[in-house]
């Protein structure tokens, strides 16, 4: 009887704590989205009235729309390249013993310990030396460096956890190594690959610090554009544009969830 009561209390408090944590995590985004529907000229919460006027302004604003496009295609490209590089690196680390393996592992995770400002300035100096600063490459590479630790970590975990005997069985049946990777390894770690791609997309899409050093030829990413905007103006347009950013991120995540199912991502 007493044990039942304690169990029930634990369950209720667990649910409450979980709800509180989820609320804390989601509340900034919820506040921004709700504020974006205000009909007034001032950004405040709770919003006054209901209107889509700030979305109309956002869609009509060429600077924000161009920046949204830049951010989206850079993030998509980064996610693709990060997957290719990250898979190759994680596969080598997981399957082979070689000299310098510990160094490679350290290198793959080093962007996490190097401050983003230092990384941005370092990459800027490098690309200035190569005379490539007015191209897209610095931004791509900068974001790639930022995303690699997350991608390698996620894929490495998937490779470690999946059953290698299936690969060995395929090889026993005379499948070539390339075929084993294509037909056995990749399908089995697909949830990990897709989680990694989400990490890469989100990390690239929301980055400000490194991007502000590596924007090129008038192309600015959306977070940099928003950051510069709020320094001189503070109106609900920022909330509307930020909500669009949230929507794009959610669309990417939901598309992947639709493709493979959320339970496989967990």
């Amino acid at each position: 009887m007493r044990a039942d009561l304690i169990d029930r209390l634990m369950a209720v408090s667990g649910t409450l704590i979980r709800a509180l944590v989820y609320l804390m995590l989601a509340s900034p985004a919820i506040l921004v989205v709700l504020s974006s529907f205000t009909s007034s000229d001032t950004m405040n919460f709770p919003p006054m009235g209901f209107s889509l006027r700030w979305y109309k302004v956002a869609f009509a604003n060429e600077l924000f729309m161009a920046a949204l496009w830049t951010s989206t295609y850079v993030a998509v490209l980064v996610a693709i390249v990060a997957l290719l590089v990250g898979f190759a690196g994680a596969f080598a680390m997981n399957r082979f013993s070689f000299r310098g393996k510990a160094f490679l592992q350290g290198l793959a995770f080093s962007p996490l310990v190097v401050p983003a400002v230092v990384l941005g300035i370092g990459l800027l100096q490098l690309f200035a030396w190569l005379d490539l600063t007015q191209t897209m490459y610095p931004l791509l590479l900068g974001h790639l460096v930022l995303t690699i630790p997350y991608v390698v970590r996620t894929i490495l975990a998937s490779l470690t956890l999946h059953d290698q005997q299936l690969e060995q069985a395929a090889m026993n049946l005379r499948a070539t190594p390339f075929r084993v990777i294509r037909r056995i390894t990749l399908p089995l770690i697909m949830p990990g690959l897709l989680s990694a791609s989400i990490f890469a997309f989100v990390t690239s899409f929301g980055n400000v610090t490194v991007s502000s050093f590596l924007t090129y030829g008038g192309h600015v990413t959306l977070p940099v554009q928003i950051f510069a905007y709020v320094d001189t103006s503070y109106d609900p347009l920022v909330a509307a544009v930020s909500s669009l950013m949230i929507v794009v991120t959610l669309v990417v995540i939901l598309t992947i969830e639709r493709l493979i199912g959320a339970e496989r991502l967990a």
Partner: protein
Amino acid sequence: MKRRAFLRFATTAAAGVLAAPYVQAQTKKFANVTLRVNGFGGAFDEALRKGVAGPLEEKYGLKVQFTAGATQADLVKLIANKSSPPYDLFMCDSSYVVELLKADIVEEIKVSDVPNIKRILPGFREFGDYGVPFNVSSVVPVFNSKYIKRPLTSYSDIARSDLTGRVILPAPDQIASSLYLLGMAEENGGSISEMEPAMKILSAAKPNIVALAQTNVAELQMFQSEEGYAGIFWDGRAHELRTKGIPIVTVFPSQGVYSTISYINVVKGMKYPEAAYAFADQLLSDQGMLAIPEALRYGVTTDVKLPEDLRRDLLFNSPERNALRKQIDWQQLWANRSGWIERVNKTIRN
């Protein structure tokens, strides 16, 4: 039509046709030229587009591309890319001009190149022939008149005992912080090389300080949500609060006001100096000069005649007030700044 009349008419028509492209080229002097300028973002860039870039495109066919970003990052980009600069014109505040000059990446701009330079107010061009000043932003004491009935009159007033737990200040690493510290020092017998009086005031103000805002937006929000009733803020942002219905009063300290000036600088090695001078001249024209004050209520740097509504709102609206704008040794301020930041952190956080 007689033969002579016909010949006269035909000659005139032919001359007109032949001259048309030349005339067109004259009116569109900078057609196919695009100037790349780093932007401050938001309403600031928008105002410059309307008041400067738009008229230039109409008049000369000159296009101006503003790229929004953080000035510090843009400065690093410019210094790192000396051989192929990413900008033709660089827009920045006084403190950054010191860095531009150190890096030797900007050209002098003479009055012979930009005639409107002669309209600049005395003392508003701080770096000799370098940079064209076009906007003044001042850091001033402010208070919410709904709650504070005894007006603040100086920077040092933030230490007043009736303001306990009500004061918001910019964080020490912001340039605004250096300016009000200098104000507090000079109001109390100190100077840029003797900041002890400022630190004493800050120490006395410690129980009053409710927050050190890391960004302008954060400070704006705090005043908007009435987390604090008094503090130090940019004059333009205080005006923005008033437009949102918050009764924030801007104070003009009688001993002087500390400001930073925005400059446009011509980057060394840029391809179109004449177009850059046309940009600077338009910026200093009446139309260009009033663009920023009309949008954001920051001050002017020339003898432009202020419309009545602007004259009422702007801090520097008369020769007497202009004379109270404090001259700042930016080089020394830049050199001393990190020490001040450390002292403020120690004073406030201990």
